[in-house]
């Protein structure tokens, strides 16, 4: 039961992209198509599961003082493995993801889960956490990628030639450009927050934020503080 709970929490309740807002660099950079999103998501999933497992296994061995270097070494190792394997077996995808594969090392989701979860929980639960978080990350990327690709290119590319394209669509290029990534992420975050607050209101756990955090009283956009 616990296993199951740890598994599904990353999909919605603690979705790394939309709830924890972690790993924004790949989120914004590679979500120009569903294919890239899925590739990135899978790579992250693999690294996340492996690093969670290893960190959980070694959690009693690693002294607290050097735990971050140890985690980074473990994570970097798995990232390099993914990089090499992807280069060997999915060369085209490796080409389009480019630099972002090595950059998985600095994806806060992975270090975050190692630090916050795997280093404190048993192997079994860490596996569930890694799978759940990885899948949640993948789903988030795919959702973002789908929105951007559909709007910005008029197509949905799942993998290689498994592709569906709108005929005669005039692409809304902004969506696929860098600013479009921010805008699409912001819109999806807004929708998620809206849904969450509706759910919270229904279950009676709704909390009204303090007034000075309300946009209506913020002077950031007017006086810069």
């Amino acid at each position, binding site marked *: 039961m616990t296993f199951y709970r740890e598994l599904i929490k990353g999909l919605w309740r603690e979705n790394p992209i939309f709830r924890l807002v972690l790993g924004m660099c790949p989120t914004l950079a590679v979500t120009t198509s569903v294919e890239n999103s899925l590739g990135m998501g899978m790579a992250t999933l693999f690294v996340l599961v492996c690093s969670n497992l290893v960190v959980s296994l070694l959690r009693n061995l690693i002294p607290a003082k050097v735990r971050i270097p140890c985690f980074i070494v473990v994570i970097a190792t798995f990232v390099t493995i993914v990089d090499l394997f992807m280069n060997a077996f999915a060369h085209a995808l490796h080409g389009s993801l480019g630099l972002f594969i090595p950059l998985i090392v600095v994806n806060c989701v992975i270090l975050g889960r190692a630090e916050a979860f795997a280093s404190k929980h048993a192997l079994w639960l860490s596996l569930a956490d890694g799978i759940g978080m990885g899948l949640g990350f993948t789903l988030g990327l795919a959702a973002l990628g789908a929105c951007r690709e559909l709007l910005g290119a008029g197509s949905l590319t799942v993998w290689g030639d498994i592709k569906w394209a709108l005929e005669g669509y*005039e692409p*809304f290029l*902004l969506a696929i450009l860098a600013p479009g990534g921010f805008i699409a992420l912001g819109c999806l975050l807004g929708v998620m927050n809206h849904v969450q607050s509706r759910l919270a209101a229904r279950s009676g756990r709704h909390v009204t934020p303090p007034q000075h955090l309300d946009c209506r009283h913020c002077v*950031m*956009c*007017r006086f810069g503080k």
Partner: protein
Amino acid sequence: MNPQADPRFVVSPSPHVHSGVTVRRIMLDVVIAMLPALAVALWFFGWNALRLVSACVVGCVAVEWLCRRGMRRDIGVTDLSAVVTGMLLAFNLPPTLPTWMAVVGCAVAVGLGKQVFGGIGYNPFNPALVGRVALTISFPVAMTRWTPWRVPSPLSIEAVTTATPLGAVKTALSSGEPMPYAFDGRTLLDFFLGNQNGCLGEVSAAALLLGAAYLLARGWISWHIPVTYVGTVALLAAAVRATDPAHSIPVAAHLVTGGLMLGALYMATDMVTSPMTKRGHLVFGAGCGVLTFVIRQWGGYPEGVSFSILLMNACTPLINRYTRPRVFGHGGRSPARKTTA
């Protein structure tokens, strides 16, 4: 005492009188000020101008209404700010743009440029410019296609030219050709009156100045932003022209072609997105001027007004912060230097 029945009166904090200025009134005056330019657009671009302006106004009001409804806020469309945004957006579009693209622009302008931030007063960027830039980036081909309806070539070299004066000059200069226009007095007068290719609202500096004079007289804009904006562009243009006359446009041509007048008079002066103090206006106008000139002279686009205004919009909070008035009785210290809690 007095037999007269004791009436109860309204009790409210002072002051008990008001200048009578309302947001709606200001917006209405802005719309009135844009009418001369609209008339010029109708004269030169005909049906297309009517089509785009009505599409944008209706689109912006509709999007505003939908957003307010969706967010369960009071429906604020009666303040006419969406109408102003719609007209400004239409003024920034080329005459042949498909209607559906204009409507997409409205959705971006009002939806992403304004309502996402909380509606009127909260938007950091000028909504009409957000819409225009989104369209420029997304549909670069449609946004740079100019097919005039009643615009004769100022020098009658050809009956029809398909580029804006600035665009034509940029292309010519970048490929080492001579300038396509002579920019003598007659051409400049033609351009000043609106006899040129361009976006709907930007062609006639004369009409824009007429409307801006009305806004100035009503006190809704101050001279600071337009004068420093146009002045900075003129100054830089004069400097570059003096050093390299072969590869630069005359100062006067800078002022009467492209969107400089529209931007300086109607969009840089937008109350919500420009600084609040007069000194802030000076900084803002000068910043817009420098950016516009840099983009026009050395950048990839022939025109840089919308980008420079948006960039300066982003600086507005900072300008506001450092151009606060000196508080009475506080010597020369600026309160901005003191940190708040």
